[in-house]
């Protein structure tokens, strides 16, 4: 009973000193590990929750005041939360949104036609939302979210749970929509394909702090490669750092590419070295002198690998 009237409260800072501007029409990726604060940031920008300190302006409005004009110009799609009415067929759900957003009839019919054809779901418009597959449902959610042609779209992991084809289709659609309609899109995703193919700018959050704000390509240092070496015996990373004179944050254990388990197993004896092109041969020579190499290969740096190391705190972008 005491807890009912005097609940115990713990304070957790979901975001700390996050500050940025977004130009109209841009496509921004918001990435971070689980719990980094991405969804909290989207909730603040869309007006669902207020910031504890500081201020937010979206389209000139204070989002938390939620004026009607503001709500008519934004959209929020959450990959993990259904927003359409499950028992209604998609068409009926869109009709309801047509009324809510007061979309002119002719425009409404055209948009449903265009969007359902673009996303290849026209044949499912009479099906109840709850009967659709995840991919089809996400497409309907997206259609429902942008029927009113919002100026700003917040997408929270829209491709989560989608197969490769469905995710690619969704991505293609978002790209076209952003380019054609000049809508500002802020997207959170754990899928680096989404970020690489769509976003001209990336914001990286770690433990609530904004640690990178710039182009995705800016994360990849020019001329850097990844040297993958498999040793006969599992090496000590600190020992490797000492003999190669490379910083420890440029050396990491290789995960097995053949592992199907989401918790990837370390590949026995495999190590990654992040190097410039002209460092590869000298480092290999040193490694051959100090151990038996079973296999080796050279890879291009991937955005995913860089971001993984950023999440782990291994590198500063």
């Amino acid at each position, binding site marked *: 009973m005491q807890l009912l009237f005097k609940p115990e409260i713990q304070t957790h800072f979901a975001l700390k000193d996050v500050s940025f501007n977004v130009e109209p029409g841009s496509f921004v990726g918001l990435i971070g590990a689980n719990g980094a604060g991405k969804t909290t940031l989207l*909730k603040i920008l869309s007006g669902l929750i207020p910031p504890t300190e500081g201020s937010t302006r979206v389209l000139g409005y204070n989002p938390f005041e939620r004026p009607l004009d503001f709500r008519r110009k934004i959209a929020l799609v*959450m990959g993990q*939360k259904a927003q359409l009415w499950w028992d209604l067929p998609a068409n009926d759900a869109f009709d309801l949104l047509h009324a809510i957003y007061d979309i002119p009839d002719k425009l409404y019919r055209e948009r449903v036609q265009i969007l359902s054809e673009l996303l290849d779901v026209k044949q499912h418009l009479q099906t109840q939302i709850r009967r659709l597959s995840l991919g089809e449902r996400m497409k309907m959610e997206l259609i429902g979210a942008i029927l009113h042609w919002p100026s700003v779209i917040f997408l929270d992991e829209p491709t989560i749970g989608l197969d490769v084809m469905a995710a690619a289709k969704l991505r293609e659609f978002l790209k076209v929509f952003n380019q054609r309609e000049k809508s500002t899109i802020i997207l959170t995703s754990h899928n680096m394909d989404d970020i690489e193919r769509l976003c001209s700018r990336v914001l990286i959050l770690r433990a609530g702090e904004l640690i990178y704000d710039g182009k995705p390509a800016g994360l990849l240092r020019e001329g850097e490669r990844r040297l993958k070496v498999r040793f006969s015996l599992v090496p000590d990373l600190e020992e490797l750092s000492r003999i190669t004179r490379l910083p420890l944050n440029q050396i990491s254990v290789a995960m097995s590419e053949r592992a199907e388990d989401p918790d990837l197993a370390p590949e026995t004896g495999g190590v990654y070295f992040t190097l410039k092109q002209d460092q590869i041969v000298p480092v290999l020579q040193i490694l051959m002198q100090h151990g038996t190499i079973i296999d080796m290969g050279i890879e291009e740096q991937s955005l995913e690998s860089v971001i993984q190391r950023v999440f782990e705190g291994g590198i500063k972008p």
Partner: protein
Amino acid sequence: MEILGNAIVPAAIQWVLWYAIFKTDGATELAGMTYVQMLHYTLVSVLFNQVRGGDQDFELAEMIRTGQLSNYLIRPVGLIQFIYIRGVASKLLISALSLAIGIVLSVSVLSSEASPLRMIGAMLLALLGNVIHFQIGAVLSAMAFRWEDAYGLLMVKNMAVSILSGELLPLNLFPESPFYLYVFGPAQYALGEWTHLEFVRQLGVAFLWIFVLWVLIRFTWGLGIKKYVSLGG
């Protein structure tokens, strides 16, 4: 079928109760009402009970708890009005059916004081009672912002309403409350127990309650929304 079930069970309970009191125990009057008057009250109260509010307040509380409220907060709709209008659609259909049945009863079975015009006025009171029922629920559901779950509170409210609305017993001996307007008040006017002047007075009371509760909803939800965390992703 659900409507029939909701109507028949309470009516049967009341009929058994009055039969036991009047026929078995030999009472001639109870709270100023005879056996026939009690039966007429039972018939008519069943009609207005179908128009009493639904469970939209539970839905509101659940939306706060699960984060589904967010779906409405980002859209250009008044949340409370949207949820109410969506829920009242079926009640309007039921009220039309109940009114039709009530008009037939008023010219056939009920006493001479009853009339189709009184039945229409009574149904208007019952519909205002429906609005008040929802508003009280909306105020209570705002507790979910603080407690995360207002289910228990809303259940207690529903149990109190069952008694205080006159659904089971005429409320002659109870003090006036907004719950009067759900069942007892409309039944009294329909049966000719209330004068037209009393009806107009009760209409005024209903609109006053609606205004007061509208202010309370704005206050409780205005405070509560600041604590909303939009759970679920």
